[in-house]
């Protein structure tokens, strides 16, 4: 049995094992140990918000199918549960899990133990209180009235403060780095540490009125993705794809081009959310041009990631991490192309204001970002908890539920949304026709959402097992299938 499979350590480094490498490995273990508690804290609370947020999301989805169900409860009305869902999964799940991943990645890539751990604890606590407080406020209807900025000021402030403590620890670790070369993932991480607080401050200046407030709102909303969530996802993809496959990233220069083009174009995109609206036309046009220009960084990243993966698809059979992360990076390419096309006027004439946009948003935040975070957590946890995932079958269940669930979700809403938009733009039909036409698609969406929730429950359950080091003891990584030993894998 043991001869048939490789151990984790052997897998990490395929090549021969010199003594240098052994001490190197030792060093890596020490680095991993230094981040264990804060990273587990970020992941654990993040996954808590994921489960809560998916429940809220599913409830919101079902409200379209059964509008009178729980209709008498103000807390659970669609207009409150929807922002609860968004804020829970974005500022709870994706941000906290992303922060955990960044902590681990930074200390790995800087080859230094994490510094100022206390700041990370403070950050996680403030952040979670902020999210909890914000969500309770939304249940009670205290909503600031702007999408992506719904949380009342005190909740937003707590989160912002939490972010600063987090950034402090990352920057201190970075300053004590033991490496010359800065890997691509680090660029994205460092940039986001500057961008995100700046974005938040500028958005809260309080100098905006009427339609420019709308411009600010969508500059912020789209940029939360541009300067925080997407960099997390890309940092993860840039790290895990080459790491698991065991070969360097295809091209450093493409990485460089991709990064700066990303920085230049992405944050001009937001105003396409107001296409056709009462803003100066040139403003929307600028955003559309920038959205189309996103082809450049996206192509650079896509070529880089996909050419690293190509020829190694066999690995997808074994490695849970790779399967999630490659799914994520493919979704990134898909969602970015979709976004560029969607921003065009002739396209958004139909798709804007419809469920199509909701499908697009989920392809990005779920298909891309969340899938990469899942993959990252599956990779990181055994290394910091010193315990293997007990049930590979549950990982498989999680993967298929998430993958099929999100595919169903996106296809259903893209089709349903397109039909909705076409009918809305046809004045010979009554408006209600556009409502009725979406109904079967909204059922399919709810089914997709249910599958995703099932996946999350499997994930959360196994996460609890691994942090308590329970479940069957495994001495080999939780591959999906036993990996045949090859020549390279022979231990020295």
């Amino acid at each position, binding site marked *: 049995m043991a001869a048939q499979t490789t151990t984790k350590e052997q897998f990490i480094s395929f090549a021969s094992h010199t003594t240098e490498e052994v001490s190197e490995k030792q060093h890596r273990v020490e680095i991993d140990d230094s981040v264990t508690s804060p990273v587990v804290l970020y992941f654990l609370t993040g996954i808590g918000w994921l489960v809560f947020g998916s429940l809220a999301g599913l409830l919101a989805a079902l*409200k*379209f199918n059964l*509008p*009178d169900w729980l*209709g*008498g409860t*103000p807390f659970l*009305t*669609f*207009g*409150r549960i*929807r*922002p609860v869902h968004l804020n829970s999964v974005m500022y709870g799940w994706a941000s906290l899990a992303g922060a955990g991943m960044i902590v681990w990645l930074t200390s790995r890539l800087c080859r230094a133990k994490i510094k100022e751990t206390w700041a990370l604890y403070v950050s996680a606590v403030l952040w979670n209180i902020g999210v909890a407080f914000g969500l309770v406020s939304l249940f009670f*209807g*205290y909503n600031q009235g*702007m*999408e992506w900025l719904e949380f009342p000021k005190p909740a937003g402030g707590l989160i912002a403060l939490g972010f600063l403590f987090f950034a402090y620890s990352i920057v201190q670790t970075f300053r004590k780095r033991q490496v*010359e070369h800065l890997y691509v993932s680090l*660029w994205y991480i*460092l*940039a986001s540490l*500057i*961008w995100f607080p*700046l974005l938040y401050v500028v958005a809260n200046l309080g*100098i*905006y*009125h*009427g*339609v*420019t*407030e*709308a*411009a*600010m*709102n969508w*500059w912020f909303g789209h*940029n939360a993705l541009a300067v925080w969530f997407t960099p997390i996802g890309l940092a993860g993809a840039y790290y895990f794809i080459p790491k698991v496959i065991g070969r360097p990233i295809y091209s450093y220069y493409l990485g460089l081009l991709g990064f700066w083009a990303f*920085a*230049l174009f992405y*944050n*001009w995109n937001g*105003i396409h959310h*107001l296409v*056709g*609206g*009462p*803003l100066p*036309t040139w*403003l929307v046009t*600028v955003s559309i041009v920038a959205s189309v220009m996103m082809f450049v960084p996206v192509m650079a990243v896509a070529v880089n990631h996909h050419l690293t993966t190509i020829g190694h698809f066999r690995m997808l059979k074994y490695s849970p991490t790779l399967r999630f992360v490659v799914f994520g990076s493919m979704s990134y390419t898909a969602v970015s192309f979709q976004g560029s096309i969607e921003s065009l*006027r002739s396209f958004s*004439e139909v798709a804007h*204001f419809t*469920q199509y946009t909701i499908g697009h948003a989920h392809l990005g935040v779920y298909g891309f970002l969340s899938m990469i975070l899942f993959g990252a957590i599956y990779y990181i946890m055994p290394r910091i908890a010193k315990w293997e995932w007990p049930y590979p079958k549950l990982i498989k269940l999680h993967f298929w539920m998430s993958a099929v669930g999100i595919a169903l979700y996106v296809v259903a809403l893209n089709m349903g949304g397109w039909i909705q938009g076409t009918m*809305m733009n046809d*004045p010979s039909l009554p*408006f*209600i026709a556009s*409502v009725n036409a979406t*109904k079967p698609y909204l059922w399919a969406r709810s089914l997709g959402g249910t599958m995703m929730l099932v996946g999350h429950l499997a994930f959360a359950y196994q996460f609890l097992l691994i942090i308590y080091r329970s479940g069957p003891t495994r001495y080999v990584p939780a591959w999906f299938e036993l990996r045949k030993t090859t020549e390279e894998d022979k231990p020295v």
Partner: protein
Amino acid sequence: MMFIRSFIFFLGVLATLLLGWAGLVGIPNFMISEVQPPKGLERYTYEQSYGRSIYIREGCLYCHSQQVRPAGFGADQERFWGRPSVPADYVYDKPHLLGTMRTGPDLFNIGARQSSEDWHLLHLYNPRIVSPGSVMPPFPWLFEEKISAAPDDKVIVLPDSITPREKVVVATREGRALTAYLIGMNHTYPVSQVPAHNDTTKKK
């Protein structure tokens, strides 16, 4: 060398974001701050602003937009949702409620389209009473059941099948404020520069 590189990185990253802000928000904010409210646009009454806050509280904005698109872009004009909206229409709006979704119709001129308080109250109590097939949520907590109505109460007349026995259903202060806000949503007054055709990239 490392220091210089870091510095350039830092500046570059800072500049990209601030440039974007200046172009998309800062400069337009400066330009549009000159806009004067049109003559026909009235300030919200106290009751209407209260209603507006209920609109925000119940998340109406996740299903309804408040912006009318010009001819040639969508069917807003053909559906008679009002003339295209302009920045001046929004000078009193804080926060803005432009919206990004049209699960339900645009509401920028709902008051001009539907000015009956009774209709709005009935619709809010349960949209499916007046609009079969609607997916809009019911808002029964904007109403209360009473044994008998006081003189200044607004009683709503429900279909027999759902009328509570021996009770009357009256709108609460919140329900009436929200309705006042909706009925006040009337931007049909003339404005000087209406974009006849906002869509410069496409010829029809």
